[in-house]
């Protein structure tokens, strides 16, 4: 409550005069305009440098690729050739001739499903490995071997097992993103301070309550590290997997564009892939901040 606001409120003013000894302390605040200027300045400090670098990069690219006979198109031509795709992402001419929105959403759906399964299974397995010495001795060496297998190496096997592209792609996402989730969760569970376990013992939490009230919040920072690595890996894997399984999806869109020599479309698709990967990462990071309330790491 600042001073001008008090003047416009007669009730407050009256109370202030009748009950004179009660003085409400109103901390001095800088005027609103100052605050906006400050926020704008801070935003500019973060946004302007990458924009400048981007502009310089584009300029360099334009200069290198503008001469006739260059293998890759300059940004101006990329924009000219993909204008339709950029401004109309929602068209649907049947088959795989769809707008970019549909391709991206198909890929995102696969990632969402595979990644969610990996998150649930990964946290559960990670908790088991972190909590039980015997589970760790039995499972950890196997995990350490399996996690080094490249995502695409799983694809033929999963195609053989599922006999369909869709579940195979989801399985590849699952198997790619589960390892960092398992390993980080296990480390987080193993690092729960003995103090918290003692508190739980004195209060007599049962195993389920211990899991929800102590383990998950105490290990949350580690779990979210795993989840962030996992989402990055699954977005990396989906593009490669879709190139092979075909159908609607940003991966096959890129492969299709390459087969029809539409280099500009590839560049546009890469741009979208990068932006979405970045957004997914920020999303998990934001979720971590909300869930751990910024206090889990004290």
């Amino acid at each position, binding site marked *: 409550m600042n001073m001008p606001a008090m003047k416009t409120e007669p009730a407050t003013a009256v109370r202030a005069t009748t009950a004179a000894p009660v003085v409400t302390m109103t901390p001095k605040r800088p005027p609103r305009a100052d605050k906006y200027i400050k926020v704008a300045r801070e935003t500019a400090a973060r946004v302007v440098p990458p924009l400048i670098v981007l502009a310089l990069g584009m300029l360099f690219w334009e200069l290198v690729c503008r001469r006739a006979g260059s293998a890759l198109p300059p940004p101006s031509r990329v924009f000219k050739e993909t204008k339709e795709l950029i401004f109309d992402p929602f068209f649907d001419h049947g088959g795989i001739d769809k707008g970019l929105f549909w391709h991206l959403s198909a890929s995102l759906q696969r990632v969402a499903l595979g990644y969610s399964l990996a998150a649930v299974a990964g946290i559960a397995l990670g908790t088991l490995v972190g909590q039980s010495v015997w589970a760790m001795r039995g499972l950890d060496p196997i995990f350490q071997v399996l996690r080094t297998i490249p995502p695409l190496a799983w694809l033929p096997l999963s195609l053989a097992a599922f006999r369909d592209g869709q579940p195979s792609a989801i399985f590849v996402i699952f198997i790619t993103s589960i390892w960092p989730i398992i390993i980080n969760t296990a480390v987080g569970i193993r690092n729960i301070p003995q103090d918290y376990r*003692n508190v739980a013992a004195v209060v007599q939490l049962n195993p389920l309550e211990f899991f929800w009230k102590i383990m998950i919040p105490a290990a949350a920072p580690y779990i979210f590290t795993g989840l962030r690595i996992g989402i990055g890996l699954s977005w990396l894997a989906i593009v490669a997997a879709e190139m092979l399984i075909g159908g609607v999806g940003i991966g096959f869109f890129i492969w299709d564009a390459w087969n029809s020599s539409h280099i500009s479309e590839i560049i546009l698709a890469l741009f979208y892939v990068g932006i979405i990967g970045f957004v997914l990462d920020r999303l998990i990071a934001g979720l971590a901040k909300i869930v751990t309330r910024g*206090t889990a790491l004290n």
Partner: protein
Amino acid sequence: MQPYLKLDHIDKIFTRGNASTEVLKDINLTIEKGEYVSIIGHSGCGKSTLLNIVAGLTDPTMGCVLLENREVNSPGPDRAVVFQNHSLLPWLTVYENVRLGVDKVFSSSKTRAERDAWTMHNLNLVQMAHAKDKRPAEISGGMKQRVGIARALAMEPKVLLLDEPFGALDALTRAHLQDSVMALHQKLGNTILMITHDVDEAVLLSDRIVMMTNGPSARIGEVLDVPLARPRKRLELSTNAAYLKCRLRVLEFLYERHRFVEAA
């Protein structure tokens, strides 16, 4: 009269590989209801181990702990612990930290509203109700320890176990908190077992002081009655003859007869 809390011939031997260390040897102690007993000794003498055994967090190698004539060998809210480093859960607010125990202990005997009122009542007892929505990281060390005490008290323990509760605090905060604990003991009549290495603290707060010899194989060396009337006033006691005599006895025990042996 049957003793309220009884430590009966407790031995504790830690074994690691082939090496085994006897930490505690033949500890016998009885504590009456409402009594405030301190255990004092040099660091490493096994007093924290002893407290953990009473709390049920560590099993004794031999002997047992009897509470109201029943053997206790697992942790429980009837022997609530105030930990040295407060051990508040950082992702919960002050209120939620206390409520966690309240919800477990009174899950069937109190309604939701009663549990809320009981949580607030205990926060009020330690004068921390004003910070109920703060997180542990946002309050001072002394305040955290107050919340730790509230959490333990809220479980209505039969015995309150204090593990060097003021050890990590500065002298002024410590004195303030000691006064609070004294007032609470006066008001609620809890049975309290406290670990400490501070002679003044032990004499000021306790009805009896249990002095432990140095480890390994630490024993109870001497038990001193503190014949000071309650309520006790810190300033008045500083010149009180009985107080000074008790203090001297403990100091003699610790620094003459059982001097701390470096790296024993």
